């Protein structure tokens, strides 16, 4: 082997090593994007739209969330928009530009120290900018308000904490069933919650737990993870952390929304299934939509028991 070949082999080895190292350290959200721990049949969950007459032929037996039997309650399926980045207001660009002009004018002709003057030119420019800004802003914002009326009505009807559901997580029951027929918006059957159950508070804690556990997973903070997970789930997570060598990573939660899908009580334990729609960024990459269900359980015969993560289940 001549020196050139040896050099090529060396480069190949270094390259392959660098790729494998990069793979090994790829940041992953809690659960690694897979289903781990306790799993449940989402088709039997309580939170479901009122059964609608669905032709048997129209049902997709393999599609999660679509019941084979039209009489059985069907779980709500969120419509996830393909675009990974939340929509931005298209009017913000021109408006910001216009407003920026006014701001610049304000800064240039106002200046530090309080003088607004700058002569007739400054005053005239400012007047024009100011009036134009008001008119343009008013028109754009009225349009924004009118067009966003429907989601706002939904937000008002939702419990506190759901007020700002990202557009991609709004429900579209008709699309979920794919019947092609125009159906009225379906009412969701209420959850059979115990009296006094604080649903908004539970949802808030669920979102908090999502962010906190991602941070604990990033920091390889086993103590924090142990506080919020069942022993089985803790074992799964700690193995995953060991596999990545316990190194710290960064998974950024950009948005998180949660809803309680189901709450059941069996064998002295309450099991709640919380569906998360989140936008996360792993390894400074592109934002990624997450749609997964976390099953949390609480022991009812232990007064000190709290909700612990028992499993993560991906939603197809």
């Amino acid at each position, binding site marked *: 082997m001549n020196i050139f070949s040896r050099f090529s082999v060396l480069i190949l080895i270094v390259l392959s090593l660098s790729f494998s190292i990069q793979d090994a350290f790829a940041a992953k959200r809690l659960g690694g994007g897979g289903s781990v721990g306790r799993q449940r049949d989402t088709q039997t969950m309580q939170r479901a739209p009122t059964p609608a007459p669905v032709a048997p032929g129209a049902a997709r037996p393999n599609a999660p969330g679509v019941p084979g039997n039209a009489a059985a309650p069907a779980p709500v399926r969120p419509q996830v928009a393909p675009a990974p980045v939340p929509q931005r207001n298209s009017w913000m660009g021109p408006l910001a530009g216009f*407003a920026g002009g006014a*701001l610049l004018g304000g800064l240039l002709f*106002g200046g*530090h*120290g309080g003088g*607004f003057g700058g002569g007739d030119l400054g005053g005239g420019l*400012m*007047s024009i900018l100011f009036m134009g800004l008001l008119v343009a802003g008013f028109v754009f914002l009225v349009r924004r308000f009118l067009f966003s009326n429907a989601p706002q009505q939904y937000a008002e009807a939702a419990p506190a904490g759901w007020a700002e559901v990202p557009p991609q997580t709004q429900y579209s029951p008709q699309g979920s069933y794919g019947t092609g027929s125009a159906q009225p918006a379906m009412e969701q059957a209420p959850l059979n919650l115990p009296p006094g159950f604080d649903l908004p508070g539970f949802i808030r804690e669920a979102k908090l737990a999502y*962010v906190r556990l991602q941070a604990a997973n990033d920091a390889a903070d086993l103590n924090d993870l142990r506080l919020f997970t069942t022993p089985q789930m803790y074992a799964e997570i700690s193995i995953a952390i060991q596999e990545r060598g316990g190194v710290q990573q960064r998974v950024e939660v950009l948005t998180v929304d949660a809803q309680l899908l189901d709450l059941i009580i069996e064998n002295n334990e309450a099991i709640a299934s919380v569906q998360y729609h989140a936008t996360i960024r792993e390894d400074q990459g592109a934002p990624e939509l997450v749609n997964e269900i976390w099953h949390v359980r609480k022991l009812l015969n232990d007064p000190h028991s709290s909700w612990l993560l028992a499993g993560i289940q991906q939603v197809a």
Partner: protein
Amino acid sequence: MTKTHFGFTQVDESEKAGRVGAVFTSVADRYDVMNDLMSAGLHRLWKRFTVDLARVKKGDRVLDLASGSGDLAMAFSQLTPNVVMTDINAAMLARGRDRMLDRGHPIPAVQCDAEKLPFADQSFDLVTVAFGLRNMTHKENALAEMYRVLAPGGRAIVLEFSQIWEPLKPVYDAYSLHVLPRMGQWVAGDAESYRYLAESIRMHPDQDTLKKMMQDVGFFSVNFHNLSAGIVALHMGYRY
């Protein structure tokens, strides 16, 4: 009983906080959309300018007073993990806290009176208050509290409506005293709260007076920037 102003109305000092609280409880649901509507989106630029000027570094301890729906706290929390948001109004604070959580930034949210802050002396590197100072009954007390909790080398920023450039005053007055309440009635179903907003702006100290108030409680190197011809002024002072 000492009187103070609530908009153009004179009320007992003990009444003002409750009345201001009622205003914000009433408008909490429509607060953000009304902010956009009233300022034609300009409040976003004013706040961005504030964040740029604050020059927050990772690790800085930031206290945002009268956080409301948390626009400034949200921006600061992208720069440093040590951000605390406060508001005297539970409805507004809950809205801000939930917004922060929905964006993956759960930060401490403390309901407290900015005139009696429940924080130790010299415990923050930056204290901000955006569109909150004019609602406080004793502004000098709030400024003194801001100074107290600042660590040496720290800075305070007050973003607040101020006195507009004189030639634009007639247009601005017509807009804020007549159009704004109607807009408030139309969008938020509450004209009175927005009438209070317009009146409270008139009663708020002008640029030079606020600068002097900050100097009087101990701030050094106080200066201010007029934004959008003085509709809003940003005051900044240091503790050495």
